[in-house]
């Protein structure tokens, strides 16, 4: 075949490529561009071409069509049958896969879970693989003939099955009157169904695929390929403008070491980016500089550094749509609908757009948190619990009303119907409209409005795709699945950055493949690392490099040649260029620089290799993080705060440990709350026990000497209480904890019976007691809730008892005084003091009832052994200190790990309070 080949035009590489191309176009097409299609690598480049044309003198002519290269076949070919959208294709692939026998499917994947979303992801992978092969004219069905002879049987079997899937897929599509755009495209080209008079100009496409190539080869006379290289290098490009591996794979780079900086980690790459900017010495405006980010994980670090310096880093990659408010909302809705879990509800309710609609906004999440910590619910059920207190009832009402409101918002989404995706679309639209419908967006004014508008636009596209799915491709599904479906389709979409409108210095961050068609005269490329440039090939589990190369697919050497060409192009086209490589990835993995940077001849290799290993020293040395004068942690207190009229007995223990903690707890009355507990904490467990013991103390059984009778009442109390508090919807561990408590109560029953037989009678339980304490002639009320008061019918002795529920025995004496004799708690002495009127001069013991695993221990001592007078003096002393507002001493507060009180007390801060180290 006397080949007519497309025209190749070498535009040189000393100047910005798009600008050169546009001048060429204007020259070449003085009549106008009506029949011209220009193919470029990406959307950004297509806008750049349009911009330059719109600003040129040729802007009065009808403009050309500028499309991304992948769209060119669609511009030129005419389809008889509607091509299936990618979305529909995935569904059909999934369906085809599921039509395989189990044995056959097993050969492709042993994952049993292919019916739902996971299956769709797998189908997407197969579809992608199919597309990759189709791009070079291979099909699953023909691959077995093309495979190398020594291909392992395991691999042959996979391709064989895939051929079968491909056939099923085609049949399915045909049955629905759709065609597969991949193979149809090939057929159309083969049959020369090219019905257009259009001319094609291709710009900046060093690696077009076979579809495009075969299309070009059908109409070479109508195609021009613009290449950013001097004419003298024409032999180094093939007829389609691709850099030849033989040349570019070996051509040493012209990068100089002065233009290459090595950073340790991504943060330092950002630092070096700033340094590189400085090295331009004010020669460029921000808009004349671009930053390449082949490794996108570096991008946030750069943006952050820019921000510090008042520069906007405009990331051309945009932000993933999954971060937009409505997407997050729908995600939360789906999770809630599919699980009905309390945690999902708590998450949904926290979405600002939901919260705005609630009747009781000003307590919505607080109510939920409080409710959670009382009832540990797993799921949202019809029943919301309430307690006997008025505030509990009011809270219940609010929770119910809010829930009703949410149900109303969800509307039909909340129903358990199974419908086709098509039928769900209007429901989803209605939901979004309910939430967002009343808003008016000003996308040209507010960035957040623009993102929202773009997001909705993407939603609408996906909705439309869903509406065009023929029934029967996707099965009927519940609302949550439908949402998941939509979100999955959206997941890969990024909202492009807004056009900046203010004159703020803005630097663009671009991907590797966008750099060649970016005309900024100055460029800094970060992330020039092995694994980022050249980018790794995909589908490695299916297509090892040797197979890729055998099949003529994109492969390692070809990519290298292409990228080597791009780098050389950039080195020539830019006035200034700086290249940055890193030594560690964001995950801390050691990483080497890109092979492109080390692609030098033998004379330079040693210097380049050495350079690669030596990070550029940070120019401003990093701060050692010196602790300034202010590093020592000081609690700050508000001395104006008033002292409560009534102090609980527990406040004294707190004060003894830490006056500051006392301040936080009893002056500021702070509390901390979250909703992460999986089981009762120590206090919760203790309260549960207290409740049951109170129930017992008020029952007739309190006078019983029969362990069984006592046990029965305790269990009765426990069961009744737990039923009312937890229903059967509490977190799984709660049930176990109840049983653990039951175990303890069994032991308690035995000990209690024994104690009763020794003559002890319960006089009062949970007795609320108050007493005024006169200190310096001023009275201070002290209040306590005494767990239990016993009196011995035989000896007349009193006993003041406090229930304790730790895992091991607590000794009242040791709890109250330290080894060196300092008071650490005043609880029992104060109880004793408060009960003076009752007890008078009768003998009295004080102590704990340790309701602990495997035993219950009554640990008491005589009140006189407690040194009551000294205790009361100490209490007076404390009241005096409190009045003097001595609140800021940190002491040694008892802190339980990570809670906010620990933070307030500066626990673990450098310069703050240290956690004690045990001896072992």
């Amino acid at each position, binding site marked *: 075949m006397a080949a007519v080949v497309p025209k190749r035009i070498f535009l040189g590489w000393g100047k910005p490529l798009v600008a050169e191309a546009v001048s060429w176009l204007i020259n070449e097409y003085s009549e106008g561009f009506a029949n011209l299609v220009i193919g470029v690598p990406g959307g950004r480049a297509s806008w750049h071409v349009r911009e330059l044309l719109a600003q040129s003198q040729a802007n009065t002519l009808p403009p050309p069509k500028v499309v991304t290269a992948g769209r060119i076949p669609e511009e030129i070919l005419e389809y008889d049958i509607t091509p299936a959208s990618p979305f529909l294709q995935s569904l059909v692939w999934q369906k085809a896969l599921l039509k395989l026998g189990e044995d056959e499917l097993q050969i492709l994947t042993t*994952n049993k*879970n292919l019916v739902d979303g996971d299956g769709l992801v797998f189908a997407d992978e197969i579809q992608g693989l199919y597309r990759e092969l189709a791009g070079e004219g291979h099909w699953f069905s023909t691959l077995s003939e093309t495979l190398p002879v020594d291909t392992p049987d395991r691999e042959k079997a996979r391709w064989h099955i895939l051929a079968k899937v491909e056939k099923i897929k085609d049949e399915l599509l045909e049955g629905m009157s759709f065609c597969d755009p991949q193979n149809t495209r090939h057929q159309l080209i083969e049959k020369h169904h090219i019905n257009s008079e259009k001319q094609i100009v291709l710009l900046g496409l060093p690696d077009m695929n076979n579809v495009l190539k075969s299309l070009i080869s059908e109409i070479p006379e109508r195609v021009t390929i613009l290449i950013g290289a001097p004419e003298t290098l024409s032999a180094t490009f093939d007829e389609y403008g691709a850099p030849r591996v033989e040349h570019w794979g070996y051509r040493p780079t012209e990068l100089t070491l002065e233009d290459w900086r090595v950073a340790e980690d991504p943060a330092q790459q950002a630092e070096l980016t700033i340094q590189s900017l400085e090295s331009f010495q004010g020669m460029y405006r921000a808009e004349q500089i671009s930053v390449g980010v082949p490794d996108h994980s570096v991008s946030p670090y750069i943006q952050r550094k820019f921000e510090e310096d008042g520069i906007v880093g405009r990331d051309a990659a945009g932000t993933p749509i999954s971060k937009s408010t409505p997407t997050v909302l729908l995600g939360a809705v789906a999770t809630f609908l599919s699980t009905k879990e309390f945690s999902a509800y708590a998450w949904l309710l926290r979405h600002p757009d939901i919260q705005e609609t609630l009747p009781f906004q000003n307590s919505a999440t607080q109510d939920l948190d409080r409710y959670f910590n009382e009832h540990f619910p797993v799921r949202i059920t019809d029943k919301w619990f309430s307690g006997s207190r008025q505030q509990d009832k009011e809270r219940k009402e609010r929770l119910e009303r809010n829930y009703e409101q949410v149900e109303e918002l969800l509307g039909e989404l909340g129903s358990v119907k199974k419908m086709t995706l098509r039928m769900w679309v209007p429901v989803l639209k209605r939901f979004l409209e309910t939430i967002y419908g009343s808003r008016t967006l000003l996308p040209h004014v507010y960035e957040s409005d623009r993102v929202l508008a773009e997001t909705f636009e993407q939603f609408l596209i996906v909705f439309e795709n869903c509406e065009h799915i023929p029934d029967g491709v996707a099965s009927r599904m519940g609302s949550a699945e439908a949402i998941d479906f939509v979100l999955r389709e959206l997941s890969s979409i990024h909202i492009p950055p807004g056009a900046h409108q203010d004159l703020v210095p803005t630097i663009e961050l671009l991907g590797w493949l966008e750099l060649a068609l970016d005309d900024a005269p100055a460029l800094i490329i970060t992330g020039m690392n092995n694994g980022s440039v050249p980018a790794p090939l995909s589908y490695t589990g299916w297509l090892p490099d040797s197979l890729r190369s055998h099949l003529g697919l994109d492969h390692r050497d070809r990519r290298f040649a292409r990228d080597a060409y791009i780098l050389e192009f950039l080195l020539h086209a830019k006035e200034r260029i700086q290249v940055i490589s890193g030594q560690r990835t964001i995950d801390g993995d050691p990483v080497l620089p890109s092979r492109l940077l080390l692609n030098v001849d033998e004379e330079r290799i040693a210097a380049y290799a050495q350079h690669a290993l030596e990070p550029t020293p940070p120019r401003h040395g990093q701060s050692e993080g010196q602790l300034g004068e202010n590093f020592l942690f000081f609690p700050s207190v508000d001395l104006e705060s008033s002292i409560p009229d009534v102090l609980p007995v527990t406040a004294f223990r707190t004060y003894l440990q830490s006056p500051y903690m006392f301040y936080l707890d009893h002056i500021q009355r702070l509390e901390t709350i979250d909703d992460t507990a*999986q089981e009762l904490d120590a206090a919760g467990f203790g309260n549960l026990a207290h409740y049951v013991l109170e129930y017992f103390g008020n029952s007739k059984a309190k006078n019983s000497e029969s362990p069984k009778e006592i046990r029965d009442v305790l269990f009765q109390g426990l069961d009744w209480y737990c039923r009312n508090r937890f229903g059967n919807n509490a977190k799984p561990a709660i049930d176990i904890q109840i049983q653990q408590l039951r175990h303890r109560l069994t032991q308690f029953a035995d000990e209690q019976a024994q104690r009763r037989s020794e003559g002890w009678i319960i006089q009062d339980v949970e007795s609320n007691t108050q007493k005024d304490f006169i200190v310096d002639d001023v009275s201070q009320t002290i209040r306590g809730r005494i767990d239990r008061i016993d009196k011995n019918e035989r000896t007349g002795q009193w006993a003041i008892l406090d229930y304790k529920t730790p895992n091991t025995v607590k000794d009242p004496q040791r709890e109250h005084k330290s080894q060196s004799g300092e008071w650490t708690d005043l609880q029992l002495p104060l109880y004793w003091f408060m009960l003076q009127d009752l007890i008078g001069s009768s003998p009295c013991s004080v102590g704990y009832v340790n309701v602990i695993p495997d035993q219950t221990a009554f640990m008491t001592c005589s009140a006189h052994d407690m040194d009551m007078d000294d205790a009361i003096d100490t209490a007076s002393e404390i009241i005096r200190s409190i009045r003097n507002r001595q609140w800021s001493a940190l002491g040694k507060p008892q802190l339980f790990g990570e809670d906010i009180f620990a933070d307030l007390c500066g626990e673990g801060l450098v310069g703050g309070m240290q956690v004690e180290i045990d001896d072992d």
Partner: protein
Amino acid sequence: MTDYPHKVVLASAGTGKTYALTSQYLKLLFNGENPEEILATTFTRKAAGEIRDRIFERIVEAINNPAEREMLANEIDTPLTEEECKQKLVAFVRHLDLIQISTIDAFFMRLVKLFSHDLGLPAQWGIVSEKNEEEQILEALASMIRSEGVAKVMAILNGLQAAGKRSVYQELQNVVKAMRSIHLESTLEAWDCIEPLPSPKLEEISNAIAALDGFEVPLTQAGTPRKNWETAISNIKSCLPLAITNGNWKDFLALTPVQRSLNLNEEINYSGVEIPESFIQPVKVLGAKAAHDITVQLRKKNIEIRGFLDQLELELSELKHRQSKFAFSDLPLLLTRGIQGVGESADIAYRLDTSIRHLLLDEFQDTNPTQWRVLQPFTSQILTNREIGSYFCVGDVKQSIYGWRQGEPRLLGSMSSLFPDLQEETLSRSYRSSPVILETANRVFSNLALAIDVIAEGDKVWGQGAQEWMENYPSHQSADHLQDLPGAAYLIEARAKNAGETHWDPLLDRLIERIMLLVEDRPDLSIGVLVRSNKPIPSILNRLQAVGIHASGEGGSTIDDSQVVLHFLSLLHFADHPGDSAALYHAQTSPFWSSELLPILDSNDPETNASALRSLLLENGYGKFAASLLTTMTERPEYGDWDRRRFNQLIDIAFSYDQDPTPGRISDFIGHIRNVKVENPSVASVRVMTVHRAKGLEFDAVFMPELQKPLINSRLGILAERPDPEDLYKRVSFAPSKNLREALGGTLEELMESHTSRELQEALCVLYVAMTRAKQHLELIVTAPSKTNTAKTYANLLRHALGNRDPDENGVIWSHPTTHPQWASSFKQRESSTSENTLATGRGPSLAPTIGLRHLQRRSPSDHYSGNSIHVSDLFQSPSELAIRGQVIHRLYEEVDWLESFKWNGDYLYSLIRHFAVTEEKLQQWLYEFRESLELSSVQKLLNQKSQPESIDGKPVAWSSWRERRFCISLASDDGTEILWNGIIDRVNIATTDDGLTTIAASVIDFKTDAFSDEQLVDKVNIYRPQLTTYRQVLSRITALAENEIDAGLLFLDGNRYVPIDSA
């Protein structure tokens, strides 16, 4: 091909392990092997990077320096020229992306990725973070409780002696922590290893009880019954019923005369008399019964726990698949379990796209058998066939401190017996430490058996353990060039603790004092303070900081040790939980509250403020949000440099956290910040870390203050025995408490012995690793014993190994005889490498002032008619049929040049609109309507060529039409900014001079298909006017006509109205 010897290299600390490995690599490389066929693995990312760097460095040095080249040539037995080295480097670099030098985890990761479908993994899976792994376990436990039911879990808790304990999860997690990894590595039968001991007959038991009942208590010389004996008998009587009925023998076996009767120790007297046979006999019967009961219970418990762990594993595996998140430790398991049949090396080679012909395994002693099972096929293929390639592994049994990760040092030991072809090589010449250090180590480890004998009081198991360890200890020597390197080594005592103090108080005092002594002269020395556990690190750091010594942790630390970070986290916590008044208080009292945030925190209602914060976070992400507070934080005097650094780190973490595409709860982020460890960018000269972290590092001076720890942790969880290092655990059992254990003997005793021996070995390894990190200076700091201290601790081991003497006035118990106390100051000061420590200034880079925008603003004239604002509700109206009708009609009008020349062709016109998604009926109807509309007077007037004026301003004109005229043009807007206008004009009637060269007039026609009432017309026109005005501007540019020479109007087809936009 070249024949390479297969080698196992036993390399003591500092003897150049990495050097040996890289030498081997270079040898292969220079012999022409393909880099992609050489797999080198190690355990940490750092080490992998180091190996890679060293290979590069050595080639570069060989190029630059003839002496280095000579050395390399010797090392690899191949003469080298500079040229060859250069060529090799060029070639090597070309394969950069294919070289396989990585962590073993990364290699497994690669394999699993290639075979993920064959292994049944979900399509998109990833590695779970450490924190989330814990959450996975918690969740699996929760669903296990749900599925197993309360009773079963209670039974387990009972078995764990955890009945009645409050925290269910804590108890269960303890089991998981201690046993999960063993469970995964054990056979089913292993858990049924306890053979119940035979029980005495019932009769014998009752006889024994009767005998004790009637036992006559020995008398004192005065003839009274001995008190102790009486108590003992009464104790026996009180605990026997429970023992017999419930099998609870704990108390019985704890009684001293019982223990002595059972011969558990050699003592045969009790309370001054020899224990009579009439006592011993029945006690032995009961002892046998006890042993029987306990073994039965233990067996049951073991099986129960195994069942529990089986179930947990099921739940966990399901959860991992559901979440698509796996742990690194799962990978080798997945591979060994799921890849059977893939095991064909050809299959693996195919997907790896290379065969692995050379294996280089680093730190081999840390390999665990699961990992080994994946590597083993590669190994044996190479080792059984010389043609294939080479095998090289290097490690040091003495440095195996990863027992808790199931690291199996015996694999290294057994290499040469497994594969007789292997050449064994031992390296004991240190390139790191001075003679003082090595002689100290030699002294400790050569006296090991003696010292252990003293502290373990002759316990055989301990003795043997020590002996075994010593077998792998060759006497260490400094390399020749280090022979004259001075140094110091001390065993130092801190004062005893006072009442109310912890051990640590005096230790810290002494430690700080000793470090200061050294640092005073030589602030440039690198100093490592090495401890056993993470716990004391913050305190040590704090103390050092307090005396002005810069110190840092290693392997990073969490950033929540700074006030500003805590303030920030409280703010976030408040946003999530507005009811948390403590968080609110903390945030409110921080400088943040009054800063940039003030505008959004303008409510008195916490809930409203929190919601506003959440909204802001949702919109901006954490990184941007945190960064926006940076200015405030930098300006506030409340915060110091430390806070500034930490806050900057927080921002970095937040930005990378934001990369995760799916936002979760705020608490997840807080948890992340609390957990993520940040490397200190500048390494302080004093570093405090665990011995595990220190592995692979070296310091000029090493301090070890945490020697009071016991060598073996007395809290025993589980005993497990793996007879064959390559194979699974074959016997696993709970460890019963000490008293019980001793009564049992047999299997349990064997398990116990092997456990003790293993633990001891590891403890010695820890000591060895720590001591050998030192180059010149070593201080071992112990506390003075409060009483006589015979505990089996590191401290006591060292005292006995180094000479148990009283300390001198400086607290020195022992120092190396050639210790040169002033070595540091006399030794030449190295050049300080630390750069200037100035905080980065906020000064931005100098850029030329911005004068324009990078991109033109893009607009389309049709934007106009919504007046720039979008009503969201409009968006969700389905594209109505009306809208589609409009598109159809437009498409059809595009076909009409002039009515006169328009030929009706129904089929053709239909083919143009066929693709619109409405029924054919509709399309036909619209086609009909289109045909009707052509008759409208307004249409006739505008679209009949004849209706157009023949001349304008007296000049004859020719009319032509543009339909669907696309344009893309840049126009200056009122404020001077350029806007890229992009769009399509429905129709333009163009009048040109007769010759067609000059445009005289033009009129823009915009077809509208809206229905409207007369009242609405004015509104409609107003809405569309800006659009038409823009069209006119565009057309003016295109035609060079003045704007006022261009007509523009709306043609309302449904109302048969043409409205020029200039009309009012």
